[in-house]
């Protein structure tokens, strides 16, 4: 284990030790090699981005961390515990939450209830006790509701508290999705293209919420993003994937200057 290394960012947020490390991960679906020998790490409290052109293996990488896919080779280490096969529910219990590229909310449920589902993991009362609103269950419900209200306040969702999620515009649905992930009080948040399909204003809002979560709640953020501008603005370090391989890793300015990255995004002369 490396010695604790703490340095301050411009904003004053302390980035700590490595919490997640991905070592030599390879993943293939039949003949398609989605990931080939990818290694990188994520430090506590940092905003870590995974970028790359279409089909580079970004979402696969996230799914591996989250335990949806099981890599054929390589290991994942989270908080000094080594896992070859992570499972989604175990990832959740350990404090990894995620959002989805194509929003997976309960469309008919209100925003409040959707975020409440994020608390599910932290509810202890049995189903019967909850249904009958027995003393402890009711107290628990109130405590959870308070936490959900704080998230609603945090993400400025007050006007939509009781609106069915399916009726909200796209940008807001993304925000609710983020709220649900935050509701489980995760240590690490995996965001799959949080700004995809948003207009400039929505992107700015989303950036602010991600940074606020990172800053005020101390959540470590791993995000996949298409939009280079956004990534460079908000991340501490960036991993670049291309055709399943890691081609660059470093702070935004280094990555921006990297010839391999430029080639991957803009193409090369043949």
């Amino acid at each position, binding site marked *: 284990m490396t010695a604790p290394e703490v340095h301050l960012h411009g904003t004053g947020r302390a980035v700590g030790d490595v919490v997640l490390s991905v070592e030599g991960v390879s993943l293939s679906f039949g003949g398609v090699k989605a990931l080939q020998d990818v290694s990188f790490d994520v430090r506590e409290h940092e905003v870590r981005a995974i970028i790359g052109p279409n089909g580079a293996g970004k979402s696969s990488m996230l799914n591996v961390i989250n335990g949806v896919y099981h890599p054929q080779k390589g290991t994942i280490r989270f908080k000094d515990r080594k896992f070859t096969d992570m499972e989604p529910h175990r990832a959740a219990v350990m404090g990894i939450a995620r959002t989805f590229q194509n929003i997976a909310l309960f469309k008919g449920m209100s925003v409040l209830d959707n975020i409440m589902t994020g608390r599910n993991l932290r509810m202890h009362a049995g189903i019967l006790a909850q249904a009958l609103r027995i003393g402890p269950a009711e107290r628990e419900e109130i405590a959870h509701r308070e936490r959900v*209200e704080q998230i609603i306040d945090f993400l400025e969702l007050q006007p939509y508290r009781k609106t069915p999620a399916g009726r909200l515009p796209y940008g807001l649905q993304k925000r609710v999705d983020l709220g649900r992930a935050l509701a489980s009080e995760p240590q690490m948040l995996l965001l799959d293209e949080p700004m995809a399909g948003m207009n400039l204003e929505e992107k*700015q809002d989303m950036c*602010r919420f991600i940074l606020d979560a990172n800053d005020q709640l101390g959540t470590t953020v791993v995000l996949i993003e298409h939009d280079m501008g956004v990534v460079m603005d908000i991340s501490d370090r960036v991993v670049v994937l291309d055709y399943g391989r890691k081609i660059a890793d470093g702070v935004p300015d280094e990555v921006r200057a990297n010839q391999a990255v430029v080639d991957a995004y803009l193409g090369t002369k043949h």
Partner: protein
Amino acid sequence: MSEDIGALDTFPKLLMHHARVRGDRPAIREKDLGIWQTWTWHELAEETRAITAALAAMGFKRGEHFALVGDNRPRLYATMAAVQCLGGIPVPLYQDAVAAEMVFPIHNASIAFAFAEDQEQVDKLLEILPQCPTLTRIIYDDPRGLRHYKQPQLLAYDRLLESGRQAHRKDPAFVESEIARGSGSDTAAMFFTSGTTGVAKGVVHTHSSLIGPSRTAAELDRLGEDDVILAYLPPAWIGQNIFSCAQALVTGYCICCPESSETVMTDMREIGPTYYFAPPRVLENLLTQVSIRMEDASRVKRWLYAYFMRVAERVGGAILDGKRVSLVDRMLYSVGDLLIYGPLRNVLGMSRIKVGYTAGEAIGPDLFKFYRSIGINLKQLYGSTETAVFVCVQPDGQVKPDTVGPAVPGVELKFTPERELLIRRPGLFKEYYKNAEATVQAVDSERWFHTGDAGYIDQDGHVKIIDRVKDVGKLADGTLFAPKYLENKLKFFPHVREAVCFGHGRDKVCAFINIDPDAVGNWAEKRNLSYSGYTDLASRDEVYELIRECVERVNADLAQEPELANSQIHRFLILHKELDADDGELTRTRKVRRGFIGEKYGSLVEALYGGRDSVHVEAQVRYEDGRTGTFSADLRIRDAKTFPAAAAKRAA
């Protein structure tokens, strides 16, 4: 303990009076984390005392100005009261103003202290620090996002409160003695006018000029401590200040602060205010939303709504005024009340309204009648920042849609030959701050205030306002042209959000239209009309057709009024963008600035009168982040059918 409230001549004295007399009753409610939290008069007074002590310790002096920027929040009002306790002058600023607009007031009044609601407002104040060297202290309420701000000017409200509590414990007599030093002739607050006419002016009001009119109006409407109001308009606007500060302090009623500006409708339902104020624009938006939702309702409900609204239109107003109505109609109305009006009032959050007011601009008669017909006692009043709002008020039972009622007791009125309304009253403002020239122009040697509004008194003694004196024009043939009147008629259609009419010195009237994106969007959705955004929607043939029908119905209406029949709208176009206060096209209170728009879109006006069918437009747009870009498009122009004047027809 009995105390003569009438003898208390300043707001801080009134506040302490309520803390003594009704300490446990609610003074302010605020929705926090989804639950309404109550501040009693006692708590509000305690908080105010602490802030007063803290501000004094920081060196805030009697007679100094204090800027407040933010939405309606208990802490903003507590700070305002604390400033007044120390004999200071609160200067509330519009919270949606851009940073540059705040420079003038802060610079003009050499303001050193400011209260900012949140990061957004703090950022704006920090941005203008270089232009405002006097500003040395910024107190912020919500610390969110400000954790890493290291500017020495910043101070958290929580810390101010803490230090104030300690200071107050050490010397409890100090605050009371400061309050006792105040008198009714001291300046109580300064409001910057929204600037319909050029540069903003600081309107200086004393305690007595605000308390007097507030008290008269409260007595007129028999307001008391049981009343409740929702404070949702900008605190920088004098009306909001009168309703949520002055009158609350005069009567001891409770004000409620909504959770956010977007939740007003829900909050209103939850609170059920008994006393209500809304500018016509808000009432219009509410009605638009009701209409949209009715269109989505099932056939049976639509039929019921249409049927009973016709009943209400016929007899609702008369029932509210206590006039005689036939038994059958009365019974029909009761059924309607059970099925439609009652539930509708409930949805609007207006079930408990005792008195509702509207003012700010002329209200479309149909819009006004709608609210009255469903049993809401909506009345009009007339006033301005300079005259402390209550100049004319419609008394219960004498409400007419096209007048603003007779003068309230203590107000004298007269008209100039140009039909300009002049006002004299004890509650008149003291002066324009550091602008003696403007003061002399507005208030003549006999203390008559020149309102700039044109109107007359009708046979019942009610004042009728037509338009601004400078806006009332004449067509080339000499007939009367009152643009506002036409625009209001257009705006009553839910599909029309804003209209701007031109015609002064011209041979005919032409108009710019802004469609309402919600209403027209919903309409388009129902017809499977896909569109990418406002500009695209506004340029659709189908939408032009829809708006043409609206314009023609206005024309048909105008044809019934002999004086105005000539000002029917001959041609119109739908603007490519929404008129916006950020682009200077609307004032902060969202009145259209016709002159400015006419100049800015001069080429469009010429195209309307030049008989062309389309016009190319290239415009600068300013985005919310302050950047600018250009936009170009072809706008179409359509003719609307006009109708022969009714009087002429009858004569023929």
